[in-house]
């Protein structure tokens, strides 16, 4: 029976669905009848870009995800990678990376808070303790045409992050913050969470095979279900529309999450002691409907969910709202029926959920079934009934792609007066300190932080108490490169994050990515997306350091499309990559603080005239085009190996990678990070040497190192005690600028003082 397309169109409109009429027709075909309201909403979510990766899944296969150290790659809630052995026990790290862009644009505080709340759940539900988070933030121009709104969003996002993360007790390990007018209408809030878990206690997010032999139930725990976030996944997958969006933003509660995390820990201990197989999954996009159908389908079973058993804070919710709302702070467990009482007692008794939060409790709301059917009942009647695998199958599209416009060539005139240029770049929104942002974040809770944001190129923590192995993390992505060359934008996102991790002496072991782009329905955007993925994949293939011939694996990630203004203007292509590294003995970790006058400054990586997207072009020349720095894979890998070796042998005393602002700003930042020392370079007023953003490193080393340098390295200066950055014929009093450099962002964004 062929459905009436007009009738389907009316259903889509009346229910506020985002699926196309073709998709609705396909859905009608699956059921052989008009789907119920809950069925419509469930498939609308599962077939959304956010959940199904329908425009990107085929392309994502190009990203390398396999390597010896990988335990679980992309596919579950978070990636799992082998980390260390301590006292005979193997430990893995757990990493996840997501975006919460649209909600943060509409309601910055709540949107960003929920972003943190959502990503930590993905790590918790692998059985891990969350040990850190990072935020990769992209805001519009705070001094531009929409400056007032952009500043408000930046303040709100930072507030949401600190209110949630600090209360939850997860140390903030930095990340980065960039400003670009391309984000005026659509900010980016990418969040990364990392955790640690015993290798033998990694938990999966589906009902285990044992459920074929004994009765298993589904336990829902946490906040009582309400109508918040109804339509959230769909919202994340459509054009930004303020009115509609506001209702789709979820409400986060770090207090409840902290108690739940502790209770979960006890529950997992109990289940391991009982020796039962179980599944554990967080409730995110699509709420109860998605978590129950996915847990069942991925375990090859069915489930019968009774919505009457769901603890709610608002009575009388329609079935599609109760099942699909995205109420925060909830988890789901698939456990044998015989241990259910024991689990409920921990949540409701030992941890007193009902007393601590009105209406909060754990309850059995479903039974897994041998018949692979997804069935939901509500008030005694059937609200949904579908073949389980049909729900998770998803839809796919091959979107057309086509190269866009060609960027503007380089300018002819290249002025260079370092005494003037360097202060101008340092005291710009692109070059000033991000300390104002970090000052709100608790980076030290858990008592395991060794290097905080701003002290080195990456943050370093000690994940396992008593074990000397350190974990270094950094996240990067340069919108100015992505805009001019989407391929190089992808490659450099990986390469810079790798350099930041290497710079402290850590060996990169895995990466995560979040691919933020405009509409996949635009062939020009799809071209950017293709090129970005190719850039990331190529860089990963070059930058594997664990086993010879193996890539740096991308073990988790997310795609965020439809980042554009209501007028249809897309954001700059923004692939953002986080890299995680291990340093076997953390007491060797190197920061960027200058240690001793008389030491030499060694430059790794010869400079090239490639200024596209550079801070120099933007601030000094006033040019928006040009050729961006090339990703040079073999050299990048060779430099990294040399740095790791020299840090391990104790020969590197200070380190900083070269990125935004080139060698000059890298050196200036080392002086700014120190209390007193300066740097004198041998370089004259040469823009290529000073401002080119060709990747590389600056290392502080003992003067005796000179004889053993590889061909891509040379001594370019030495550490002084005068707090200045000088060169041949020029000198800048860096100490004198410290306060303004440190305070600029706070004065513009928080105190609204302009420039």
């Amino acid at each position: 029976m062929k459905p009436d397309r007009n009738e389907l169109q009316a259903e889509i409109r009346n229910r506020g669905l985002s699926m196309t009429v073709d998709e609705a027709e396909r859905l009608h075909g699956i059921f052989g009848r008009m789907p119920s309201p809950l069925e419509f909403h469930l498939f609308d979510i599962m077939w959304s870009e956010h959940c199904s990766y329908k425009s990107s899944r085929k392309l994502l296969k190009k990203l390398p995800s396999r390597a010896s150290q990988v335990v679980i790659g992309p596919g579950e809630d978070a990636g799992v990678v082998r980390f260390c052995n301590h006292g005979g026990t193997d430990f893995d790290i757990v990493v996840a990376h997501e975006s919460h862009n649209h909600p943060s644009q509409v309601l910055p505080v709540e949107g960003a808070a929920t972003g943190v709340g959502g990503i930590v759940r993905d790590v918790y539900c692998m059985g891990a303790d969350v040990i850190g988070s990072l935020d990769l933030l992209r805001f519009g121009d705070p001094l531009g045409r929409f400056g007032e709104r952009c500043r408000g969003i930046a303040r709100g996002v930072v507030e949401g992050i600190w209110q949630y993360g600090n209360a939850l007790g997860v140390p903030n390990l930095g990340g980065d913050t960039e400003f670009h007018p391309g984000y005026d209408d659509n900010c980016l809030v990418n969040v990364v969470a990392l955790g640690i878990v015993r290798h033998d206690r990694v938990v999966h997010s589906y009902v285990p095979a044992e459920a074929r032999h004994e009765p298993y139930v589904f336990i829902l725990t946490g906040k009582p279900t309400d109508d918040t976030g109804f339509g959230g996944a769909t919202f994340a997958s459509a054009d930004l529309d303020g009115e509609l969006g506001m209702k789709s933003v979820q409400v986060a509660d770090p207090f409840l999450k902290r108690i739940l995390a502790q209770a979960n820990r006890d529950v997992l201990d109990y289940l391991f002691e009982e020796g039962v197989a179980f599944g554990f999954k967080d409730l995110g996009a699509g709420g109860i409907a998605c978590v129950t159908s996915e847990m069942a389908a991925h375990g090859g079973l069915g489930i019968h969910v009774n919505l009457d058993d769901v603890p709610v804070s608002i009575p009388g919710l329609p079935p599609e709202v109760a099942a699909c709302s995205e109420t925060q702070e909830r988890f789901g467990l698939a456990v044998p029926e015989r241990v259910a009482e024991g689990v409920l007692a921990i949540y409701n008794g030992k941890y007193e959920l009902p007393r601590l939060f009105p209406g909060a409790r754990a309850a059995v709301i479903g039974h897994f079934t041998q018949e692979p059917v997804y069935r939901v009942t509500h008030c005694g009647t059937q609200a949904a009934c579908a073949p389980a695998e049909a729900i998770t199958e998803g839809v796919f599209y091959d979107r057309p792609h086509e190269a866009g416009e060609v960027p503007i060539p380089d300018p002819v005139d290249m002025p260079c007066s370092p005494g003037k240029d360097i202060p101008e770049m340092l005291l710009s929104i692109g070059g000033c300190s991000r300390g104002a942002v970090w000052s709100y974040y608790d980076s030290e809770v858990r008592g395991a932080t060794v290097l905080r944001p701003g002290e080195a190129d990456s943050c370093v923590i000690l994940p396992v108490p008593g074990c000397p192995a350190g974990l270094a993390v950094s996240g990067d992505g340069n919108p100015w490169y992505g805009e001019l060359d989407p391929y190089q934008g992808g490659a450099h996102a990986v390469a810079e994050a790798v350099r930041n991790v290497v710079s402290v002496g850590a060996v990169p072991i895995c990466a995560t990515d979040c691919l933020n782009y405009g509409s996949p329905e635009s062939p020009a955007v799809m071209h950017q997306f293709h090129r970005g993925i190719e850039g990331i994949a190529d860089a990963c293939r070059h930058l594997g350091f664990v086993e010879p011939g193996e890539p740096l694996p991308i073990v988790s990630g997310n795609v965020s499309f439809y980042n554009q203004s209501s007028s249809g203007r897309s954001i700059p292509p923004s692939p953002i990559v986080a890299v995680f590294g291990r340093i076997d003995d953390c007491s060797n970790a190197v920061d960027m603080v200058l240690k001793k006058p008389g030491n030499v400054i060694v430059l790794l990586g010869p400079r090239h005239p490639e200024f596209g997207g550079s801070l120099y072009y933007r601030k000094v020349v006033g040019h928006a085009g040009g050729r961006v720095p090339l990703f040079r894979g073999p050299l990048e890998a060779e430099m990294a190996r040399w740095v790791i070796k020299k840090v391990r042998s104790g020969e590197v005393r200070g380190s900083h990678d070269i990125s935004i602002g080139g060698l000059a700003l890298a050196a200036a930042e080392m002086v700014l990070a120190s209390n007193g020392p300066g740097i004198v370079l041998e370089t004259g007023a040469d823009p290529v040497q000073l401002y080119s953003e060709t990747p590389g490193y600056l290392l502080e080393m003992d003067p005796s190192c000179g004889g053993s340098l590889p061909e891509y390295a040379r001594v370019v200066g030495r550490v002084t005690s005068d707090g200045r950055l000088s060169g041949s014929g020029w000198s800048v009093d860096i100490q004198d600028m410290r306060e303004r450099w440190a305070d600029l962002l706070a004065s513009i964004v928080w105190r609204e003082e302009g420039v």
Partner: protein
Amino acid sequence: MKPRVAVVRFPGSNCEYETARALDACGLQGVIFNWNELSGAAGSGSSAWVLPGGFSFQDRVRAGAVAARERIMDVVYGDAVSGKPVLGICNGAQILVESGLVPGWRPGAVEASLSGNLAPGRTGYLSRWIFVRAVPEGVDRCPWLADAGEEPIPLPIAHAEGRFVFRSADEQQALEMSVLRYCSPEGAPASDWPLNPNGSSFAAAGVMNPRGNVLAMMPHPERALNIHHVPPNLPGPWGEVRRNRGPVSEPGPGASFFRGLARYLEVQ
């Protein structure tokens, strides 16, 4: 057998693990008890109590106000009045103030507050390293300061409400109880921002009770337990050690607070 120290986890506490570890590292045995494990905590044979940092009860009403009225605080209160050492760190300090144990001129009466940070052009949470110095009376009378010496101690703070405020009528005795004070890296008294990071009266970072056994402090000593916790660009001798030696896992500036207790309990 190492002396036991009970660490209380309230709903929303988030520093209990590292606090227990810090006690363990300093010759003590930290044991974590949940807020509702009354009989377990009371009968644990603990020699002292620590209320760790966090956001107990979501800072409902005021930071620390709800936790101060939990039943387990009756047990803590009884032990405090009988002279057992009690330390409150950050949110733990807020709970001690809200329960009337600090400053504790009339135990049980709330006589001070930990109010919102006062800093020019800035509100909300602040995380940074500061310097504090113990005053001699505190070193003499407070077990937690027994090993603090006279030199400036660098510690991290992380709070939005850390400003000690007293009634003007109580000023003289409040000054006497303010035994841990913010100072410059060289040890000079801190009057204003940024050395006094929250506008606290008398630059108080920590306030004790008249008997000296209870200390409420806003900085986090458990986050400064080792050299590896110290920021590499910190001025002063601890920064110098950190720069020269690298981030090694040897005792850092915060260890003295727990060592002080261990020493005190040894003598007892």
